[in-house]
């Protein structure tokens, strides 16, 4: 038995681990080349022990946080624990061996201290193109072999020696070898930094004390989450929704059912009742994605970093109280060789339905329906030189209203938290030009005491011929309102050519490998969030603000909020008629 580490040293080691993970993430995104990593920060990095427990993780995109242990377990099927040597560097992305999805490539390096394997330094990053059936992203493909290069626990370096054949194979099998090269170099630099810093930490505090401290830190994080779960009454809580389609069988909705079983200080998320696996790439790798979504939901709901003062270490402890069940062969736990690359929209909805299921028992922590989707656009083309250009763009959406505040507009919600690309940077480097990027004001966000967030509209125009794949959802099932709030709005996608702006084609949320012509404009309108609470209770001054700011119309203010506005000549145009508003609201009464 190792002696318990005193609480002061524990804080010291915990702080050091946190700093290491942050530095690893920092090096990775600053050094990388592709915009999906450097701007969007679609990456994760951290340290792990020999049993693949997460010791610390960078505070980057939530989708990556919690996924790396799955990769490590997957790699262990190829490389046994005694198969590691100092100076090894493994590359891995197999969706049926723990990967989050195949474009999220992991780089893993072992950490040796005094000749003994102590753990791993690892990171994941989303690569722009791994040679899949269509450039950048895929939807309607037959199986996982169309996902591109699948690397299952391969050594890029073996005891410090570079595996040149593997490197060559990788560069020969992507459409953008220079981006993939630069990004892999950044990942390796980040992992090396983690190895070095972990070894320094072991040297400073001693191996036993550090290992013992990591155990206590995991226990601490676990106990913090369990405390919060225990406050929720035991019971089974259920919520349901549906996805538009699988990207091939149009109009065929895919059901999602989430049952949250709260028992004491533990919780199970059961996805039984959700759709069977689908024949396209619209499936979710269980370990690397379905699990991670459920971990995220409870951490964000119950240990919200905005309302909790204390920093709670990000480690394995936050995963332990949450058990995830999804039947084998379902969309959330598919069976190989079905493809499972386009998985984000589905897991966003898992998180949102967990929130919906629990809202009645934890209203002060919940939200109304979030957009809970993704617009992932792969723009590409071939330059006159013969080189490919591939650009992955993540378009934001909006959140639902909240117990004490409106849902944020135009923001990355739930499992994602990337940054957009500056339009000017794109314009200088790609044959694409943005024609519109604004708050969506063609529909009102869900009305409520606290309204839903307004979505986004973004229109990109091709300047040269190209290709496009779009991964999205939620054109059919609108974000819900809660506690008397109204529902939000569904998304839509329009395509037209600037030469014929009136000939607008409405497109489904998912399509793959579409050929585009110069002047083609792809306009994405994201869903808007649902409202929280009775709109008649909304402060009339806020309703007026929304009218003046153009988020809602005067008519909407009257119809949904019962707020009567009078015209006034002050440069702004409207003011609240308090008496008429009161009378109107009283007349309608509370629903």
């Amino acid at each position: 038995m190792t002696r318990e580490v005193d609480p002061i040293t524990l804080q010291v080691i915990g702080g050091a681990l946190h700093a290491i993970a942050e530095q690893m993430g920092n090096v990775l995104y600053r050094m990388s080349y592709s915009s999906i990593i450097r701007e969007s920060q679609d990456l994760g990095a951290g340290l792990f022990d020999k049993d693949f427990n997460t010791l610390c993780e960078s505070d980057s995109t939530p989708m990556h946080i919690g996924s790396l242990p799955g990769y490590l377990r997957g790699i262990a099927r190829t490389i046994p624990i005694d198969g590691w040597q100092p100076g090894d560097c493994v590359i891995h992305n197999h969706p049926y061996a723990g990967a989050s999805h195949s474009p999220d490539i992991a780089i893993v390096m072992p950490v040796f201290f005094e000749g003994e394997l102590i753990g791993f330094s690892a990171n994941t990053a989303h690569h722009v193109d791994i040679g899949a059936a269509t450039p950048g992203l895929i939807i309607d493909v037959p199986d996982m072999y169309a996902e591109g290069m699948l690397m299952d626990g391969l050594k890029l370096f073996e005891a410090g020696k570079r595996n040149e054949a593997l490197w060559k194979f990788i560069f020969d099998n992507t459409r953008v070898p220079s981006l993939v090269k630069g990004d892999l170099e950044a990942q390796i630099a980040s992992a090396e930094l983690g190895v070095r810093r972990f070894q320094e930490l072991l040297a400073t505090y001693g191996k036993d004390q550090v290992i013992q401290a990591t155990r206590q830190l995991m226990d601490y994080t676990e106990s913090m989450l369990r405390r919060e779960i225990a406050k929720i009454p035991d019971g089974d809580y259920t919520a349901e929704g549906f996805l538009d389609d699988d990207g091939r069988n149009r109009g065929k909705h895919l059901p999602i059912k989430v049952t949250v079983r709260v028992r004491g200080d533990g919780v199970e998320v059961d996805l039984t009742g959700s759709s069977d696996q689908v024949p396209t790439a619209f499936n979710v790798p269980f370990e690397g994605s379905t699990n991670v979504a459920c971990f995220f939901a409870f951490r964000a709901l119950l240990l919200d970093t905005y309302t909790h003062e204390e920093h709670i270490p990000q480690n394995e402890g936050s995963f332990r109280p949450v058990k995830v069940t999804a039947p084998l062969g379902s969309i959330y736990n598919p069976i190989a060789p079905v493809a499972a690359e386009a998985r984000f929209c589905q897991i966003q909805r898992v998180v949102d339905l967990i929130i919906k299921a629990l809202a009645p028992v934890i209203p002060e922590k919940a939200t109304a329906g979030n957009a809970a989707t993704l617009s992932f656009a792969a723009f590409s083309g071939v330059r006159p030189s013969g080189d490919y250009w591939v650009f992955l763009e993540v378009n934001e959406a909006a959140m639902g209203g909240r117990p004490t505040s409106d849902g944020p507009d135009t923001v990355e919600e739930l499992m994602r938290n990337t940054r957009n690309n500056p339009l000017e940077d794109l314009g200088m480097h790609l044959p694409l030009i943005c024609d519109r990027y604004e708050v969506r004001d063609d529909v009102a966000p869900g009305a409520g005491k606290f309204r839903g967030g307004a979505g986004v509209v973004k229109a990109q125009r091709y300047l040269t011929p190209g290709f496009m794949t779009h991964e999205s959802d939620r054109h059919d099932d609108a974000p819900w309102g809660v506690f008397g709030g109204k529902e939000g709005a569904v998304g839509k996608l329009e395509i037209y050519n600037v030469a014929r702006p009136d000939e607008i084609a409405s497109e489904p949320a998912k399509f793959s490998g579409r050929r585009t012509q110069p002047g083609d404009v792809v306009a994405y309108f994201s869903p808007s969030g649902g409202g929280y609470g009775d709109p008649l209770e909304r402060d009339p001054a806020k309703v007026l603000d929304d009218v003046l700011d153009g988020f809602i119309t005067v008519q909407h203010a009257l119809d949904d909020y019962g707020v009567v506005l009078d015209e006034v000549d002050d440069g702004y145009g409207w003011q609240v008629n308090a008496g008429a508003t009161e009378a109107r609201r009283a007349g309608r009464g509370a629903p």
Partner: protein
Amino acid sequence: MIRVGVDVGGTFTDVVLERTRAAGEDQQIVVHKVPSTPHDQSEGVVKGVVEICQMAGIAPGEIDMVFHGTTVATNMVIERKGAEVGMITTRGFRDILHMARHKRPHNFSLQFDVPWQSKPLVKRRNRLPVTERIMPPDGRVEVPLDTDEVKAAAELFAKRGLDAVIVGFLFAFLNDEHEQKAKEIVEAAMPDAYVCCSSEIVNVIREYERFSTCAMNAYIGPMTARYMRQLEGRLREAGVRAVVRIMQSNGGISTVENAIQRPVGLLLSGPAGGVIGGRWTGEHAGTQNVITIDIGGTSADISVIQDGELRIKNPRDTEVASLPVLVPMIDIDAIGAGGGSIAYLDPGGAFRVGPRSAGADPGPACYGKGGDEPTVTDAQVVLGRLDPEQFLGGDLAIDPALSERAIATHIAGPMGLSVTDAALGILRIINNNMALAINNNSVAKGIDPRNFSLMGFGGAGPLHGTALAELISARDVISPLQPGITAAMGLLVTDLQYEYTHSVLLVLNQAGEAEFEALNAAMDELRAQADAQLEADGIPPGARRFRKVAECRYLGQGFELRADMPEGPLGKDNVQEVIKSFFDAHQQVYGHAFEDQLTEAVTLRLIATAEVDMLRLPDLAQGGRTDPEDAVLYVRDTVFDDGEARPTPRYRRDRLLAGDRVTGPALIVQHNSTTLLPPGYAAEVLGHGDMRVAKQG
């Protein structure tokens, strides 16, 4: 020559006066503290200046120059008390300021705030799109500016009574024709408004950051101008006829006129003085490498000086109140750790210190002003490291029994520790938090602290110096002559400094004659702007210094690093020098450089400086003694980090002479600070009275 430095802090306004006479004659330095006047900082400033004149025995009219570090602009942003701003922007892009980079500030949160949406610098109702379109990559006009729409927008803003208006068009960094035209129209329609456009505030690529910087400038513009005028007026009324200069975020000083035009350059005006003071003290102590940590009541500001140069933050990281501001700023990291940081046990039983702070009110438990939670200061008191009679020279009465009770009740009791061990734990945790923050600003950026001296200042700095130096493995510790007023001293040792930028986006390895010509012409234009400014400041050409920088990245990367440019024009023959400089920077920051990759210059930057007179400290008389008896006040027990209480002498700092050596354990006390010397350490008094503290043997 009589020069005065005034630094306004949250609690106190610090004033330093320096009087130099003809060569060979005595020099006089006077320091003073007056309470700050947050409702109007200029009140405290003028009071301090007038009083220090009395102390120095001079008339206010004799002061030649006043140097001022101010938090006026920063507070305006934090408290959101700026102007009502209008914006004219490109049709189709009304909400760039509302969407920002669409990343939310918290990963694991559903209830988070989005400051740029909940407290916008420009409300959506006041962001009006007009028809115009400039196209990349060459800046050609695709759709001409609709001047009627601009005029209508300006008239509407006038009717709404707005104080300030910005013009921000997409791709204006390639061609500012439309922005300038729109600005003229707005100025004609609103002659009293504060008007600026994005390309003239910061002419760089990336629309959100450029618009945000411009919006920030306009948001703080009208009231900063009012403050500056008020300050000048009050000083005049008090009989001060001196020239007034203002500290900027980049560590240079600027004229009042320039500060009014570009107030966005003032957002770190407050903490910058301390870093400059740190560099200056380092020079005195014979070290070019200093890590400074300014420890106040609620926060600590950390910065690194390498080879005698201030480190400037990467422009991708410069933000204020979560809003990006693309102006050069000294790389200063603020963390929530200071004397007032509260120690507590969280619901999961973890031992925490800060970032919650007792501030100045109620303050630490020992103040007896109603604060019953233990703070870092209380731990120092309990351990005998801060004596009640020395606390601000005895000006502030404190009660050690209250410190003890707070620690016993909240920490020692529940954890089953002795009060002493609990107090040591508080210090260990806070020191560790600070050390991690220092590492983030040094080791994480490729800096090896073993070659650096650690300088702790602010009243509490010298109490933490040796512990921090040990944690980060710094070479030694410097305790400056006046730790409590280092920032004000720094104001008197600052150069005039202006920076000008221009976007280029040029792959250096592939550039041809024409591209180099255009780049050189752009740099000449920046130089002309700088010369005009320095001319207006009355700086003779011989005293002007220029540094040319190209902010570069590997083609395809998204983050730039600074590379030095050769003095003469850039061409095929010397472009490798720039590329090499970029490689070196990349190697230092990331530990890797790729010799086979193409280097792209993104932004040209010209830094123009002019030296002004420097504060000179008088030499101390030579002592050369060891543990001088006549400087000892008394001996009392102090607990050091090993938990042992030792009889520890207190030395009066003002009785120490040059070359004197004090060996630990010892406390060296002065009015505004206490320097802690643990056993095994010794302090050496340097020529001007600064001290170098190092491990013996």
